[in-house]
Each structure stands twice: as C-alpha cells, then as structure tokens.
C-alpha cells in the first residue's frame, strides 16, 4: 500500500506541475495566449468525443487535435516545439482533471494524463526530428510532411497501446499480451484520428476555419462506421446470449449456468494471454456449450436416452446452422472430452478453447449445482487435473479466484 500512496503523490505532483511547465514553455514560444487557449479547449472538447473501439482503450478526437498542432504551430525553422509542448502539458493535465471529476481514482487519472502526455510528446518529437533529418532532400513535394507524419504516428500508436496495456493489466487482472493485441486491433481508429488532425493542419493555412468541416466530414463517416460496428457487435452478443438462455428458461439446465461459464471462461482466456479473436470464440462457445439441451424437450429423445456426446453433437449441429460460428461449433462438439486419456499424450487437436470451457462448466456444476464451496470445487478440479482437466487451465482458474478483482470479474 505504501507503494500506492507514493504513486498517488506522484500523480498529484504531475497534475499540478504539468500546467506550470506548460505555461513556461508557451512563454518561450512564438504563440499568442489566444492560440494556446483555443488549442487547449479544442483538445479538451475533443476528448469528449469518444470513438467506439473493441479493446476498451480510450481513443478520442483529442488525438486528432494533438496531431494537428505540429502542422499548425510552425516557425520558419520548423515545428514550434515549445508552443506545441506547452499546449500538450496544459492539455494533458486538463484531461487528467476531467477524468478525476468523472470519478476515476486519482492514480488512474494521473496515469491517463501521463500516458496521453508521453504519447503526444513522442509524436511531436519524432515528427520534428524526422522532418529536420529529411531537410530539403525531398523538396516541397509533400513527402517532406508525410514521411515524418507516418513515422511519428506509428511511434505514438505503439507507445500509447504499450502503456495502456501495461497500466490496464495492473487493475484488470488480464494479461498485458491480450490487452496489447486488442489495442493494436484499434489501429484503424487511431490512424483515422491522426490523419484527420494532420489533414486539418495542412489545410488550415490555406482554407482557414473551412478546414474544420472539410477535414472532419470524412472522419465523421469513419466515426459512424466504428459506432455501427460496435453496436452490431454488442447486438450480436446479446442475441447469442439470449439464445443460450433458452434451455435454462425451459428448465432443461441449471439456471444461469451459461452466463457463469462464459464469464469464467473469458477471464481464464484473458489470463492465459489468448488473442482477442480466441477470447471471443471462448465467450461464444461457453455461452452455447449446452444449447444442445434444447433437444431434451423431445419425447423420442427422452425415451431413448442420451449421452454427453449426443448433447455436444446436437449443440454443435444447432450452432453449425450459423455459418459465421463455424469454429465455435467445432469447439462445442469437443468441449466435454477429457484433456488426456490414461497412458496417452494430451491430444494436440483438442483446442485450448474447448479445454477452458470444460473447466469453467465443471467448476460451475460443482459450485452452483452441487453447492460446494470455492475451495471444495477447486479441489475437485485439482483431482481431475492432468487427465480430465488441463492443469494449466485449472491453475489459471485458481489464480483468478484467489484475488478479489478476479472473483468480481466472474460473478454474474
């Protein structure tokens, strides 16, 4: 805890000293206070317009504003680095304060402001350096701007995602690898924001404020595309979830089993560092692993009896009705199989997705179905580890259930 309070004090120092340093930097620059105010306000207003992304990273129009500054604030010698840095310092302290007033804890607000600042500064510095290095080598053809811009944008993106993944994995109990991969998946959103900022910056000189609508309109198409994509994604998930609840509503399965299995499976998948795509497969496969139980409604089936294999087959047949869920159907087909049969090596074709769902489902059956305590249920899994269950997956479940944050993540 001592460590925590040290970081909190550092956050306060950072949030207070950044604007002071910013004012000093601006005083050394060629900018007027009016220009600085407009730029800072634009940065803060931009931070309210959030682009929809899958990863959970916060990407806003502020990124575009920050990207525009090195283009707008120029001196005959090149980028007005003092002015740009001054606006970044004042602006990122403002972003931290806004985050605080929204109820985000001090440590995370400070971290957010710091991360933004490091990203901004990376961009401006790389941009200015590469531009100076190019010098007059490429003339005024446009490449003298584009090459530094692309280099700086890429550097900024990886710095931002890297810092975010490291910070966020601290308080989310999720592997930094998973977050990093998810963050890299937002490259399209980030690129469109940065390019929009640069576009505005390039046109501002010639068009004045007309540059604003002209540069923002193409982005607004992208923005609405991102939003629609995420909306559809969430509707898709809701639909799958709703379908997964049908056997439970019909009294053919333990109530809430699909949701609990899915929450636990997703937590394990993220803990084990699976890619975002695999995590999504895990989520769908876990939700629907018992969908085959719908069939237990039919009289002929009940008369003839059924096995675990039948259930898995029916489930995968139902899921196979949806072409886009082909992989998930395959996982559901095999999720009841043992990790390894006595005397044999573990089957390499049995996907980790299926192994995760098996462990989560078994834990819920023990904890909720049989009413065992957490430790008793885990003990049961441990006894089956190495043959019935994948020991690595069981160890991951234990890691998650051993922390408060982990238990919160899997309680639904």
């Amino acid at each position, binding site marked *: 805890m001592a460590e925590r309070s040290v970081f909190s004090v550092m956050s306060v120092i950072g949030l207070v000293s950044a604007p002071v340093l910013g004012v000093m930097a601006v005083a050394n620059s060629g900018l007027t206070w009016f220009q600085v105010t407009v730029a800072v306000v634009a940065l803060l207003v931009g931070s309210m317009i959030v682009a929809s992304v899958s990863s959970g990273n916060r990407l806003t129009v502020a990124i575009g504003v920050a990207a525009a500054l090195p283009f707008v604030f120029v001196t005959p010698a090149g980028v007005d680095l003092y002015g740009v840095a001054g606006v970044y310092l004042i602006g990122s302290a403002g972003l931290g304060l806004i985050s605080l007033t929204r109820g985000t804890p001090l440590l995370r607000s400070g971290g957010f402001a710091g991360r933004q600042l490091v990203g901004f500064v990376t961009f401006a510095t790389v941009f200015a350096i590469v531009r100076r290095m190019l010098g007059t080598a490429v003339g005024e*053809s*446009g*490449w003298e*701007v*584009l090459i530094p811009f692309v280099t700086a944008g890429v550097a900024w993106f990886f710095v931002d995602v890297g810092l975010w993944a490291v910070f966020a994995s601290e308080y989310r109990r999720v592997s930094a690898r998973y977050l990093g991969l998810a963050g890299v998946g937002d490259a*399209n*959103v980030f*690129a*469109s924001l940065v*390019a*929009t900022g*640069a*576009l505005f910056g*390039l*046109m501002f*000189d*010639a*068009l*004045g404020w*007309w*540059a604003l*609508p*002209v540069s923002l*309109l*193409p*982005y607004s*198409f*992208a923005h609405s*595309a*991102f939003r*629609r*994509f995420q909306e*559809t*994604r*969430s*509707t*898709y998930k*809701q*639909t*799958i*979830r*709703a*379908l997964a*609840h*049908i056997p439970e*509503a*019909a009294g053919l399965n333990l109530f809430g089993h699909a949701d609990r299995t899915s929450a636990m499976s997703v937590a394990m998948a993220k803990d084990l560092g699976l890619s975002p795509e695999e995590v999504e497969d895990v989520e769908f496969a876990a939700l629907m692993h018992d969908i085959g139980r*719908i069939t237990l*409604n*039919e*009289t002929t089936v009940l008369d003839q009896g059924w096995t675990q294999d039948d259930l898995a087959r029916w489930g995968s*047949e*139902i899921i*196979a*009705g*949806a*072409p*886009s*869920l082909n992989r998930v159907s395959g996982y559901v087909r095999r999720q009841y199989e043992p990790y390894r049969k006595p005397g044999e090596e573990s089957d390499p074709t049995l996907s980790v997705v299926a192994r995760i769902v098996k462990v989560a489902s078994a834990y819920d059956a023990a904890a909720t179905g049989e009413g065992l305590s957490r430790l008793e249920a885990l003990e049961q899994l441990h006894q089956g580890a190495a043959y019935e269950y994948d020991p690595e997956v069981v160890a991951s479940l234990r890691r998650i259930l051993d922390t408060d944050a982990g238990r919160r993540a899997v309680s639904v």
Partner: protein
Amino acid sequence: MKPLIRRQARVAGAYSLLGLVCLVGVLAVTNRPDWLTWVVFAFAFVALEFKTVEVNDRMLQSSGLMVLLTAGTVFALRPNASALFAMVAIAALGSVIPEDVRLKRWFQPLANFGQMVVSAACAGVILDQMLTGAPLASPYTLARVALAGGLASVAYTIVNLTMVRYAVKYVYGQRNLQPWSGLHVLLISQVTLGAVGGLIGAGLVIVGKPAVAVLVLIVYLIAHLSFSSYSQLREAHQSALRGFVKVLEARDLYTRGHTERVAYFSQLIGEELRYTGTQLERLRFASLIHDLGKLAIPGDLLQKQGSLLPEEKAEMRQAARKVEEILGEVDFLRPMVSISGVHYIDVDTFDADTWSLDASIVATADAFEAMTSTRSYRMALSQAEAFAELRSDDSGRFFPDVVNALESGLVRTGEVYGGSGVPAASQATGGPPHG
C-alpha cells in the same frame, strides 16, 4: 430467346448505346484532363466500386460517388480542364465489378455502363457550369463548391435511380424495388456526400499539396473498410439467427419455413407503410425471433393435435413469458418482446397499451401465415378467408392499417397465398420469391 433475356437485351442495348454516345460526344467537345491526377482518382473510384458496401438498405455505392465528385470538382476548378470529361471517363471504368465477371453476367455491366456514364455526365455539366473560372482566393468559392457538389450529387442520384428503376421494372416486372422506396432519406445523405466530396476537391486544389489527397484517402479508406466489416458482421448476425431458426424449425414438419414467410410478410407490410431501412431491419429481426418461444415448450405439447387443455395452455403461456424475458435482453428488440408471446395471448390477457405498430405487423404476418398454410389440425384457408378473419378479429391485435397494407402489398407483388385450389404443400415448400 426467352422473354426475360430478350427484355434484358433490349435494356442493355439501349442503355449502353446511350452511354457510348454520351462518352464519344463528351470526348469530342472537351479538353483532355491531366492524366496523372485522373488515373489516381479513377483508381480510387474503381477500387471503391469493386468493394461496394451496403451501409444499410438505402446507402449503396456512396463511397464511389464521393470520389467521383471530388475528382469532378478538382477538374472543374483547374484552368483548361473539365469535370465533364473526367467524370464520364471515370464512371465508364466503374461499370464492371468482379462479381459480374465471376457470375458471367452480361446484363448488369452493360446497363450499369449506360446508367453511370449518363448520370456522371449530368453531374459533370453542373460542376462545370457552376465552378469553371471560380476565383480560388475568394472566401465564397468554398460555399459555391459545397452547393455545386450537393446539386451534382442529387442530379447523379436521381438520373441513376430513374434509369435503374425503369430497367428493373421493364425487365423483371414490379417486384424488387424495395431499396428505392425511401428516396427522400437517400437524397439527404447524397447531398451531404456531394458537398463533402466537392469541398475535399476544393481543398486539394486550393492547398495544392498531394499530401492532402493521401490523407483524405487514408481516412476515407478506413471509413470504407470499417463500413464493410460492419456490413459483414451484420450479415453474420442475420445469417446466424436465420440458421438457428432453420435448425430449430426442423423439429416441426408443419411449421417448416414459417418464420421465413412471416419475415417476408412483415417486410411487405413495412414497405407498404414506408418504413425506412433501419426500421425494416428491426422488423426482420423481430419476425425471425418471434417464434423462438416454442423452444421452451415441451415437444409433445407443441405437436399436439386439436385444442389444448386449460393447464396445457397455462404451461404454454408461462413458457412464452420466460422467453419474452430472455428476448428482452437484446436491446433493440426490447420494445417488441410482446410479439414473441403472440401465439399464446388470449383476448382477455391482451394489453392494448403495450401493443405497438411493429408488434401488430408481426402478429398480423404471423396470423396470416398460419391461416394460409396447412397445419397438423386443419387445411389452409384461402387468402380471402384469411383476410376476412383478420378483419373480424375484435381483439385489437391486428391494426386495420396493417391488414390493409398486407393486402395491398400482395396485390402489388401479384402473389396469392392460401388454399384456394392451390395445393397447400407447394405453398409450404415454395417460400417467398425473395426475403
């Protein structure tokens, strides 16, 4: 030659001839463009046309149009160049898409060639008239560009849609005109697109840096790709739902295909009531899921012949309520969950206050489908009998407007359902012509 092919050949011949005349005429009267710039735009346009994205039921091909207008504006503003030639020549290139080649289609490319060249010519004339010689330094020029772009875009859209509409009507008869039922919505988005396309063009000319074009292209390409992945995801979602419904319906021989037909009738009613693309989509989803309630019902009860005992009815109603709760978990379906219980609602439990127009549409489509197809316990009614029953129902579930819309929709498409001399079996397997 089959009549369909003969009609196609006539339209394809007339349109492509018109396009060719237009192209040659323009070639003869205008100056040549700066080829390097032209090639860049043509490439972008063709690339976008190749990967056409359906934003929703209305917004097709918009990306290509915007690039076309940007190109037109650039050439109109430049001295000694003309938007007309640049646009007509670009449009001519975009008329064949890989889909056509893959499916060995000849009619679409030929007709498209004519439509696109003529529409582009109309838009080009507007841009040239309004922008040639406009002073680049004047602050009013940008407003003028926005206006010209908007107008040119509207002209392109109207000419193109009119030609497409005529061709579809002539070749295929009345059906399949659904994407153009809400022209006003389309026009608003086209005006915006045109104005933006024009402004970007003006930005390119006035700033004079190719870097601007590259950046615009980056943002625009990202938007385009995101729309196309959105569209793919939406498609995946819909086909997933369809797939599930199909697998689950397989349990019951008599209702096989029921859901698809209900979705089709709902769509028909929605079109008659001038629903927009988004509303139609919601209706389609609602009608696809309206019947999932029966999954929670024991199979023997579901397939039971004759009427149900009171306790069996209660069981059915309870199952339906549970499923309503589940479907309420899907955000955009929440206002319509009462639909899923439509089979099990007795007149005395029906609550008119929560009954929406959407709910009434799906309920009407569902009842009509049930009455006009043969079930385990009775033969199909004729279409006229079914409408008479819908109108005599005094529960308030079937709004008169909705019933009328269904009837006029069926008149429009010339379809007849139900057991009036037509064997019911062919109805059950035939399905709607499209849906």
